[in-house]
C-alpha cells in the first residue's frame, strides 16, 4: 500500500519535471534566436560565429550614422503612430455603433468590419497597389498608411468592442436621464470607461503597423519603412548593423507589450 502511494507520487513528480522541461524547450526555441541577435549586435566580428572575440557598440554607431536607417526608423514610427491613432478612433466609433445602435443589418456590419483580417496581406497589398495605380495616387508613406488601416481598424474594433460590451447600458441611460445628450454621454461616460480598451487598441495597432512588411512593400516606393530597409539591406548580403536594428526594434516592441500588460493588469 505504502509502496503504491510512493509510486504514484514519484510518477506525479516525473510528470511535473516533464512538463517543466517541455516549457523550457519551447521558451528556448522562441527566445534563443532573439538572444543570439542581441548578443551578436555587440560582437566585434563581422561574421556571426563563436567564439566572440570582443564586444563593441560600433554597429549601433554605424547604424545611427547611416541616415537611411534613421530615416526609415522615423518613417516607421510616424506610420505606426498615425495608423494606430486613426484606427483606434474609427474602431471606437465602429464598436460603439455596432453595440448600441438599433440599426438593421448590425451583424452584417460587424462581420464586414472584421473581414479584412481574413484576407491574406499579400492580396491586400496587390489589390491596393492596383487600386492606387488606377486612381493615379502616387505611392508613398501615405498609401502605406491607408493600406495599414485596412487591417488595423478591425483590430481596434475588436479590442474596443470587447471593452464597451462590459459597460452596462444603464450607465448611459442614467446619463441621458440626468440631461446629457448622446454626444456628451459618449464623452463623459463611454469614453472614460472604455479607456483601457482604447489604450490596448493603440498599443496593439502600433506594433502591428510598425512590424508590417508585405503591404508596406507593395505600397511604397522611396519612403522606406524600417522592415523594408532591413530587408533591402539583407538581400545584398549580411550586414551586422541589422543585428543592432533588430535589437532596437525588439526593445521598442518589448516596452509596448509591457505597457499593454500593465494596463491590462491594472484593470483586474
Amino acid at each position, binding site marked *: 500500500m505504502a509502496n503504491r502511494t510512493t509510486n504514484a507520487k514519484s510518477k506525479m513528480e516525473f510528470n511535473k519535471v516533464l512538463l517543466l522541461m517541455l516549457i523550457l524547450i519551447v521558451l528556448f526555441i522562441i527566445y534563443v534566436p532573439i538572444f543570439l541577435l542581441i548578443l551578436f549586435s555587440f560582437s566585434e566580428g563581422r561574421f556571426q560565429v563563436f567564439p566572440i572575440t570582443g564586444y563593441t557598440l560600433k554597429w549601433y554607431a554605424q547604424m545611427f550614422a547611416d541616415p537611411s536607417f534613421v530615416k526609415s526608423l522615423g518613417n516607421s514610427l510616424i506610420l505606426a503612430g498615425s495608423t494606430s491613432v486613426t484606427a483606434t478612433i474609427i474602431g471606437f466609433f465602429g464598436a460603439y455603433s455596432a453595440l448600441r445602435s438599433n440599426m438593421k443589418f448590425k451583424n452584417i456590419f460587424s462581420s464586414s468590419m472584421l473581414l479584412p483580417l481574413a484576407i491574406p496581406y499579400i492580396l491586400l497589398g496587390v489589390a491596393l497597389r492596383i487600386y492606387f495605380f488606377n486612381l493615379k495616387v502616387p505611392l508613398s508613406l501615405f498609401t502605406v498608411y491607408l493600406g495599414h488601416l485596412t487591417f488595423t481598424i478591425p483590430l481596434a474594433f475588436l479590442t474596443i468592442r470587447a471593452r464597451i460590451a462590459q459597460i*452596462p447600458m*444603464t*450607465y448611459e*441611460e*442614467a446619463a*441621458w*436621464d*440626468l*440631461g*446629457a445628450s448622446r454626444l456628451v454621454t459618449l464623452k463623459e461616460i463611454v469614453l472614460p470607461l472604455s479607456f483601457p480598451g482604447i489604450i490596448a487598441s493603440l498599443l496593439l495597432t502600433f506594433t502591428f503597423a510598425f512590424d508590417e512588411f508585405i503591404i508596406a512593400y507593395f505600397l511604397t516606393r522611396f519612403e522606406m519603412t524600417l522592415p523594408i530597409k532591413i530587408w533591402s539591406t539583407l538581400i545584398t548580403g549580411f550586414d551586422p548593423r541589422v543585428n543592432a536594428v533588430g535589437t532596437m526594434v525588439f526593445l521598442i516592441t518589448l516596452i509596448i507589450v509591457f505597457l499593454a500588460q500593465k494596463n491590462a493588469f491594472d484593470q483586474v
Partner: protein
Amino acid sequence: MSENVMVRLEGVTKIFTDCTAVDNQDLDIYEGEFLTLLGPSGCGKTTTLRMIAGLEIPTNGRILIHGEDVTFNLPSERDTSIMFQNYALFPHKTVGENIAFGLKMRGIDKKEQEIKVREMLDFVQLPAVYDRKPHQLSGGQCQRVALARSLVMQPSVLLLDEPLGALDAGLRKAMQLELKNIQRKTGITFIYVTHDQEEALTMSDRIAVMQNGVIEQLAPPSVIYEQPKNEFVAKFVGRCNLIPGKVIEQENGLVLVSNDALGRLRAKNPAGEIRAGEEVKILVRPEKVWFSNQNNTANGTVISKAYVGSRVDYQIECNGLVLLVEADALVDLYIGDEVDVCWEAKDSIIMPKNFCNTTE
C-alpha cells in the same frame, strides 16, 4: 394627495420583436402619489417605467406628464428621474461628481453644484462620502447616493426600478420606511416597480398588479389584499386558501356556497351580481382562519406544521381539502391532531371562476 393627474398613459402598447410587453394600457398617476407596479418578471412593469422615463418609445398610445404629450421626448426633456436596480452610479466619478452630474448638464456653476450636492448628501444621511468612488461604498450607501443623484434634479416624478432588490432583508426593510418618508417629505410622485408583494403593500398609496402586459387590478393596498379581483391577484399578493364551490343563493349581501368537503359556506361578494349554480372559488387568507367551532366550521386533521417565529403555519386536511392556517405561536398542535377550523364569513370573498387569468 391632490387629484391632479401627474402622469397619464393612454392606450400605451409596446411590442418588441418577439412579444407584446405592454398591451393597450391606460393609467392615471396622481400628483404626490406613491404608485407601485407589481407583478412577476416579464409582466411589462419595467417596460412601462422605461417608457415613462423615455428610455423606450411606445409602439402605440400616448404618455402625458403635466398634461403635456411627451411620448417622443428624450429622457433629458422630461420632468422625471429614474433610479435603476443596479443604481448605475458612474464608477469613474466620485460620489460628489455623480450627484453633480445632472446639475452640470443644466449648466449650474461649480460652487452652487457643490452646495446642492452637500445638502443632498446630508438629506440622505451620508455627509462623509463626497470624495469616495462608488466601489468604496456599501450597497445601502450606493442606493442612497443614487437616490440623491435623482432627487437633486428636483423631478416631479421619480421612477424606481426595483431599487431595493440588491439589498439584504434587514436593510431592505429600513430603506422601505426611509423611501416612504422621503416621498412624504418631498411630495414627489413615486412610481415604483417591484415583484415583492410585501414591499408593495407596505409602501404604496395604490398598487397596479400586472400580468402579461396588462393591469389586472389597480387599487389601494388593503383592497388589493382583501378584495383581489381575481385568482392571479389573490395569489400574487399573499398566500391564500381557494375553496371551489357552487353558488346556492344570495342573502343579505352574503353568498351561500356549497363545497363537497366543507358543506355550506358563507362569503362576501364584492363583485356584485351572481347567479345561483355558478361555479366560484372562495378566498380565505390563512391568517383569518383560527381553531374553534363557530361560523364556517370544518373538522380536520393536522398534516404539517412549520414554525416561522412570530407564528406557526399549519396545514389542515378536511375531507380531502387542504387548508393553510397561520396560527398564533401560542397554539400548540401536533401532526395527526383533530381540530376544528373556522373563519368569519366577512373575511372570505367570492371569486367568480371566469375571472381567473382574464382581463376585462
